[in-house]
């Protein structure tokens, strides 16, 4: 739900810009943080804040890869698949996570615990392979480390996510 407080936060951001429309991306970030993904209600709130039609907000959500238009898992795992990570074995990291988490890349596990995604270069080539757990970096992830991480996350699934 987009509360009055969330909407006020969006409005405060909009007021920082010379033109309100510029608050589109930050307002959508706020909406997604509040609800886990960008809901129709979230898009409506953003449209009101930046002063445009809701269709236009929808076209923004579909363009930028960080916005989710559908519910995602409690933990969103993004594995970098670009060249530097590829050269250092990211495909084995991905295969390990697919196997150990029991979910194919590009999908959310049926219980809603994990969404596993392959993503483009995360600007961390010096510490390849890398992944992000709920947008926070985990670097130098060998397949062995990936297996450890998968175990850690799964034992924590009962507890609220840390990141």
């Amino acid at each position: 739900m987009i509360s009055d407080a969330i909407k006020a936060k969006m409005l405060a951001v909009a007021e920082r810009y010379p033109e309100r429309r510029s608050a589109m991306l930050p307002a959508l970030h706020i909406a997604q943080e509040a609800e886990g993904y960008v809901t129709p209600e979230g898009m409506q709130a953003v449209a009101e804040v930046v002063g445009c039609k809701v269709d236009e907000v929808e076209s923004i959500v579909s363009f930028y890869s960080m916005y989710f238009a559908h519910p995602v898992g409690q933990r969103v795992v993004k594995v970098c698949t670009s060249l530097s990570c590829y050269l250092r074995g990211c495909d084995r990291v991905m295969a390990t996570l697919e196997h150990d988490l029991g979910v194919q890349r590009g999908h959310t596990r049926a219980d809603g615990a994990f969404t596993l995604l392959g993503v483009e270069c995360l600007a961390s080539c010096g510490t390849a392979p890398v992944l992000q757990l709920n947008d926070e970096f985990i670097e130098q992830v060998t397949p062995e480390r990936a297996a450890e991480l998968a175990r850690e996350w799964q034992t924590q699934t009962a507890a609220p996510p840390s990141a």
Partner: protein
Amino acid sequence: MAEQMRVVTKDIEIPGIDTLAVYQAHGGYAALRKALAMEPVAVMEEVKISGLRGRGGAGFPTGMKWSFLAKGSSKPTYLACNADESEPGTFKDRMIMERLPHRLVEGVLISAYATGTKTAFIYIRGELKQAARQVGRAIQEAYDAGLAGKNIMGTGIDIDIILHRGAGAYICGEETALMESLEGKRGYPRLKPPFPAAAGIYGGPTVINNCETLSTVPLILANGGAWYAGIGTEKSKGTRIFCVSGHVNKPGNYELPMGTPLRTIIDDYAGGVLGGKRVKAIIPGGSSTPMLDASKLDIPMDYESVAAAGSMLGAAGVIVLDEDTCIVGAVLRMTEFYRDESCGKCTPCREGTYWLVELLERLEHGGGRGSDIALLRDICDNISGKSFCPLGDAATSSIISSIKLFADEYLYHVTQGRCLVGEGARQAIAAH
């Protein structure tokens, strides 16, 4: 290990340098104070003397770019820092933002003053959350200390800095797409002209500089343009943060004078090739720049020498591929990036990158035909120079250069249905 030449990254290893107190204790914001006591045109002149060229990839002289700003416009002038770092092989701006955020903020303030800008934006790639937190905190500290906002240091000068986070789109690192994104739209490139210097953000004259470029400005002001111009080569002045990744023992960022030989960077700084293997290929400036083979290991890493060798210094993202790397597999991986990141505005890029991936996949997985190599070149020719922005051109760099340098590997895939080297060579049909 050999010492780096720390200019942009000066003091980066000092604990707490990301806080205002420690940054100031090490001379931080003295360059801003010095700049504000000068005429803006004199600050611009100092940057011109330094010979600083853009660190985002194109290498355009920074002072000259500033001087192109339209004068007498009825609209305000804007400055945007391009920190949408997304080029595969590049990870220097993230380091600056996370560890030296005040150097960037100081650079933005000085550059805004030099260009007569009252509103500056820092466009940070959405995925770099920690970088955004660090820069956001530095901006807040600067405001609280009277170093940003209204009446900076009691001089009567006002400069606002707005931190803007992207949301996942490589294309927004292209300057006109960045402006569209900043205005709350899809990141589609604009037709040029008008150039940003004439009509950019909200139609006002706009200057867009890379994060590393702006972070260099405080050092130039502190030590003088002539001092900076004394580092590097005659045409490529100063230092460069080389981002080294791939098959090396110590991948990482190394700040060195322009013109440092590629072999020195790989062997003396990045610890040599993993497992003592030989270098097969190097991508010198990020995945958008053409590949070089091992015969080019002794070139000096400056704009001119890398161009003469057949590639580009670009964003200085040095990716090392060892002798066991399947070139077709690596090129396929790079091409998938451009297919996924093409914004879709121009047909040659949108459709062309899709078909390039289809052909490369077919070759990689053993279903390629002899005519596919010529077809790849033909599609590249139909993309290159035929779209609004350079993304499509960039997609063709690795394909064209690798076919030229490693045609035998492509042919082997066609005739044998598997890789010439690496894991894929041991399987009847490559499955990696």
